[in-house]
């Protein structure tokens, strides 16, 4: 315990007495964490937008035969709702279908009033929205089963299968590319941190040599540098989190405003589903999540870099 406290003390002392080196390391690490945060937020925004588009564009409409009984209809509805890949299920009655038809064709007066409640060929339908749009083909297999042939007239997937598959394939490629892009820039940032800490320890190599020659074990030599690395990580995380919080709060304010135009409006639209869910602010939970990522990244980065940098000077 005594030696642990001493190592801790040496680390804090080294941090304070090599203040300029510490400041440079903290600035570099903060910028790296902000880079990681920016790409993490970007990934979250992209995922949310992808889900939004997918839910708007990729839903599965099951058109019900007019001859199907209410009992069969309700049974099919319950089974669809119980499917794990289905997020929400909406029922569109014949009357709702007529109203939607008239709204979709409001520019064509000749079609208005063509369909009435007594003469409505439009089928009732069940609309399924998915948790992951990629599971649409699995759902299609389920609906295509023989036991539903007496209830199901047709589905929207039959007409749009190719374009849906192409869309999903394209977005998958886009996400892989985005992930590669993110990893590339994060790697650059990590290398910058590694180099900064290596230079800081290089500047103190004589100190390490002296510690070896007066009989300090590797624990007493390496330990304080690891403690300093932890201090760099914690301080950098706090600074990065504060800056991120300010930025997210500003974006949340933009999203809440209804009169924003131009760039502000575009930013608000881009981040709306990220910072708000069902009208409730998600900034705090998002910030906590980002804080955890930053802290873990910072601790791993700073301590590993310190250990690697000191290691070469410990060899006899």
């Amino acid at each position, binding site marked *: 315990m*005594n*030696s642990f406290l*001493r190592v801790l003390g040496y680390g804090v*002392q*080294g941090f304070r*007495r*090599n203040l300029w080196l510490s400041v440079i390391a903290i600035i570099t690490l903060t910028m790296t964490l902000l880079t990681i945060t920016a790409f993490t937020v970007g990934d979250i925004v992209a995922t949310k937008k992808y889900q939004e588009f997918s839910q708007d564009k990729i839903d599965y409409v099951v058109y019900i035969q007019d001859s199907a009984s209410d009992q069969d209809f309700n049974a099919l509805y319950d089974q669809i709702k119980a499917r794990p890949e289905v997020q929400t299920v909406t029922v569109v009655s014949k009357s709702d279908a007529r109203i939607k038809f008239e709204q979709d064709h409001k520019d064509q007066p000749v079609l208005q009033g063509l369909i009435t409640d007594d003469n409505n060929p439009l089928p009732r339908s069940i609309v399924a929205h998915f948790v992951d749009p990629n599971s649409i083909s699995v759902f299609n297999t389920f609906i295509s089963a023989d036991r539903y042939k007496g209830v199901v007239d047709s589905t929207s997937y039959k007409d749009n299968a190719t374009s849906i598959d192409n869309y999903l394939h394209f977005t998958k490629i886009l996400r892989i590319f985005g992930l590669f892009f993110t990893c590339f820039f994060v790697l650059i940032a990590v290398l910058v941190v590694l180099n900064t800490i290596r230079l800081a320890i290089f500047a103190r190599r*004589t*100190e390490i*040599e*002296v*510690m*070896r*020659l*007066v*009989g*300090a*074990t590797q624990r*007493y030599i390496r330990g304080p540098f690891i403690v300093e690395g932890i201090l760099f990580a914690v301080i950098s995380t706090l600074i990065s989190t504060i800056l991120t919080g300010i930025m997210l709060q500003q974006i949340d304010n933009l999203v809440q405003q209804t009169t924003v135009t131009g760039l502000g409006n575009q930013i608000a639209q881009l981040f709306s589903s990220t910072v708000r869910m069902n009208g409730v602010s998600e900034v705090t939970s998002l910030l906590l999540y980002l804080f955890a990522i930053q802290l873990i990244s910072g601790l791993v980065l700073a301590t590993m870099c310190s250990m690697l940098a000191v290691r070469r000077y410990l060899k*006899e």
Partner: protein
Amino acid sequence: MPEEKVTEQPDSPASKPGKSVEGLTKKVAAKVGKAARPLFKKVKDAMPGKEVEPIEDPTPLRPLLVEFRDVTKQYGNHIALNNISIKFYKGEFLSIVGPSGAGKSTLIKCLTLQERPDSGRIIVAGRDITLLKDRDLPYYRRKVGIVFQDFKLLPAKTVYENVAFALEVSGTPGREIKSRVEVMLETVGMLSKRNNFPHELSGGEQQRVVIARALVHDPKILIADEPTGNLDPVNTWEIVELLYKINKSGTMVILATHDREIVDALKKRVVTMRAGTVVADQEKGVYLV
């Protein structure tokens, strides 16, 4: 060459009156007495390395402390130590002299295990240190005090902290560290500058702090590798006087130096090296090179 009896010269610079190191050493013992005795016993028992039988029985008057047996060290094609065999005895003061490249620093680096010999054995206090593993080196280095030409103080620590560090890394309790460090700084005349940093001290003052750090473990051997190389003449003689007094208190001192005046004034054992070999070994020697 007949063995000359070692006597102190009354007119030598080293015999000038000054602080009694023996008196202060007793003070150290008095302050830390009970705690120190078990520590010294532990130090003796904890000397790392395999015990080796000496080739000849040491005489009771001059117990053998360090022995180089057929030690060779080579850097590429350059032979720095060429089959050196030499013995150093407990409590003696010896100077190692020679031109640049003679092997003085290599000899000292092998003794402190900053370098490992390519062949041969080095026996210290009955233990073959060439067999020590890297993880045992810190424990050996705590038994040997080293004074460097370039001081090698920790720049971000004060005078007090530099000396205390040598004890802290060995797990010495805080209260004992405080008393030992203060006495040691008083011995070398640096107690009033305990809160200064190395860059705030002169060369002579820094070297005093280094000596204090080297002695704080109460080592049996104090090795000084060109300790006055960066000092002016006044500071040089102060340091030499300090080393002489340390030797009088019982610590063996090995001094590697280029300085003819120091060697001739000390009239102690002089080992002369040239081209990696020992060419002369005089009991009350002079600078021959």
